[in-house]
């Protein structure tokens, strides 16, 4: 049985490979906090675990179903709120629910809201659907400011997760590491469940709806119902992520249903790669690392992020996952070495561009925010004088030169990539003929 691998990639995982991959995933989840033991690292790892569930849930809509939602934070956010209120019920003794099951309450909330709002949203598809999700997101966000009884007003709703009988006799979920392992467990099970979904009739029909909604009707399926069910499942897992976040931070504020968070889900799931199942996992890692670390490094991080996003949409719409897979394929045919030169050129010129542009941006920000500290700003070890012309002229030149060289090397790269692809096609045909 030959597999033809042309422009699009259909990877049939071998059974051995499948066990290996899942085993590695579980191993990574278990071992990570033992490698990075600082509390900062553990906080990040916890957030990554939560983010993975949220982004994978989002990708059920985006990558699997072709549905672009601008308001997905509603489902994870409301999951958070319901989870923390339930936790408070447990604290007050009104309902003795084990802390480890709280995320499921979040999931139920997410699914319930998705059932309600999804009914309205999935009446449309494509661009109108996106507009509706935007409007609904704003609706919930506005309501969050109006109903402090549920949303806690300015201070949000807080709670305490160390209550009741210790789980399994010793897990109080007080220490961060215990919370991490709870989240890791949920993460692994959720990942497996969402992966399993892709191998069921509903999952496959969801893909069919993505590829050709008109045809789906003519093979007996109601496209709206397929989308609606997928929406609810996605809402469930988003709610689980929200519930875990409520446990982790022990406080939930209105921003968890805000547009910024919805935008982050979209941005990072796309960056990670919506066309492969594991893409959102990469996206979640980027999301946490980016939001936590990058914002420390520079004021302009959101600008850089936006520019990278634009670049990816234009040149690599399959995200980082697709870049990895395409290069793995090239490596499998032994042709990766040919491209190293091109890659180095791309990296070098991109870096030059970045240095020039970054210098300008940092100088601008410095002038705006820190003008009282004098006209000099540090940038990668070099002192730039914002008052003088040299620094500006220099950075503009560096950026333009970098831009020009980058465009040149990009075109060269595209040529070489095309050649490599052609060679691979020939090789495939040769093997098929055998």
């Amino acid at each position, binding site marked *: 049985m030959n597999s033809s691998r042309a*422009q699009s990639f259909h990877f049939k995982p071998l059974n051995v490979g499948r066990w290996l991959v899942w085993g590695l995933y579980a191993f990574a989840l278990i071992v990570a906090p033992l490698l990075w033991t600082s509390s900062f690292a553990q906080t990040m790892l916890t957030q990554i675990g939560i983010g993975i569930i949220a982004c994978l849930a989002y990708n059920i809509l985006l990558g699997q179903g072709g549905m672009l939602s601008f308001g997905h934070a509603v489902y994870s956010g409301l999951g958070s709120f319901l989870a923390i209120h339930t936790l408070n019920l447990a604290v007050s003794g009104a309902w003795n629910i084990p802390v480890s099951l709280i995320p499921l309450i979040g999931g139920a909330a997410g699914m319930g809201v998705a059932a309600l709002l999804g009914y309205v949203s999935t009446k449309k598809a494509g661009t109108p659907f996106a507009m509706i999700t935007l409007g609904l997101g704003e609706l919930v966000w506005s309501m969050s400011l109006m109903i402090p009884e549920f949303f806690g007003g300015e201070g949000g709703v807080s709670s305490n997760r160390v209550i009741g009988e210790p789980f399994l006799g010793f897990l109080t979920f007080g220490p961060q590491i215990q919370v991490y392992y709870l989240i890791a467990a949920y993460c692994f099970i959720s990942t497996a469940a969402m992966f399993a979904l892709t191998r069921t009739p509903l999952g496959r029909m969801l893909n069919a709806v993505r590829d050709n909604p008109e045809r789906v009707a003519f093979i007996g399926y109601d496209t709206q119902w397929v989308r609606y069910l997928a929406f609810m499942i996605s809402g469930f897992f988003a709610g689980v992520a929200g519930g875990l976040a409520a446990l982790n931070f022990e406080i939930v504020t209105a921003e968890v249903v805000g547009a910024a968070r919805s935008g982050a889900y979209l941005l990072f799931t796309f960056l990670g790669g919506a066309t492969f199942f594991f893409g959102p996992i990469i996206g979640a890692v980027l999301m946490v690392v980016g939001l936590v670390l990058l914002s420390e490094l520079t004021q302009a991080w959101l600008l850089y992020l936006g520019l990278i996003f634009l670049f990816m949409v234009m040149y690599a719409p399959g995200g980082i996952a697709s870049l990895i897979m395409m290069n793995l394929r090239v490596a499998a045919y032994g042709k990766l070495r040919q491209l190293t030169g091109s890659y180095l050129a791309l990296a070098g010129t991109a870096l030059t561009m970045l240095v020039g542009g970054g210098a300008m941006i940092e100088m601008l920000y410095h002038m705006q925010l820190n003008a009282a500290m004098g006209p000099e700003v540090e940038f990668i070890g070099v002192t730039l004088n914002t008052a003088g012309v040299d620094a500006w002229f220099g950075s503009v030149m560096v950026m333009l030169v970098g831009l020009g060289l980058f465009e040149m090397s990009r075109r060269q790269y595209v040529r070489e990539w095309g050649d490599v692809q052609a060679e691979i096609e020939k090789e495939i045909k040769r093997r098929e003929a055998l």
Partner: protein
Amino acid sequence: MSSSEFALELLAVKKAFGKSEIIRGAQLQVKAGERVAIIGPNGAGKSTLFNLITGRFGLSSGEIRLHGQRIDGKKPYEINRLGLSRSFQVSNLFTRLSVFENIRCAVLWSLGHRYSFWKFLADLTDANERAEAVLAMIKLDRRRDVPAMNLTYAEARALEIGITIAGGSSVILLDEPTAGMSKSETQRFIQLIREVTVGKTLLTVEHDMGVVFGLADKIAVLVYGEVIAFDVPDAVRADARVQEAYLGSVLAEAH
């Protein structure tokens, strides 16, 4: 619901878009198992007719019956579930799914799997076996795992037919199935269509007269939204009105 002798009936069907009447009282009654070719000059309303039958547009007036049951006003997926399937003139495939997956999707509903998310596709032996059978019928087994967007034109057309018949519908509508094919491809395709529609009721829109006369039991001639003739090929060829509408030459050249 009475199940009459006719598999598909169009009774005084009218369709107007705004002020322009495209279908002006089409009358057609197709018996079960018949193979009918619908021919007519451009603009006669053939695609509109298909869209009306399959529920894409609603009727302005009249009735459409499938096995005696009224289907006008129903949604496309409801009509499909009652046993009517169509193919498209421009291949309408699930682009990122493989050939096999395309066919398997088409069999799922007819085997009752519906919206289930608690069973794995790999475990559905009935669906997999049926999909394999259809794959063999349309002779695309060697291209099983190719994403549909990477198929050649003829392969895509074959898959198009495959998806249409996979669900086991009793009434099949084919919209210019051999459009854009070479002579030899067309001949092979006719044979394929004959094989996969054994025992089914077939309605096909065609422009190639060789195909029409080779495939059809009966021909329906659609002119200005009306069926002006519906009979066996020889009778249609001899019909004066048809000759007038077609200027005789097109029919003569296919002899």
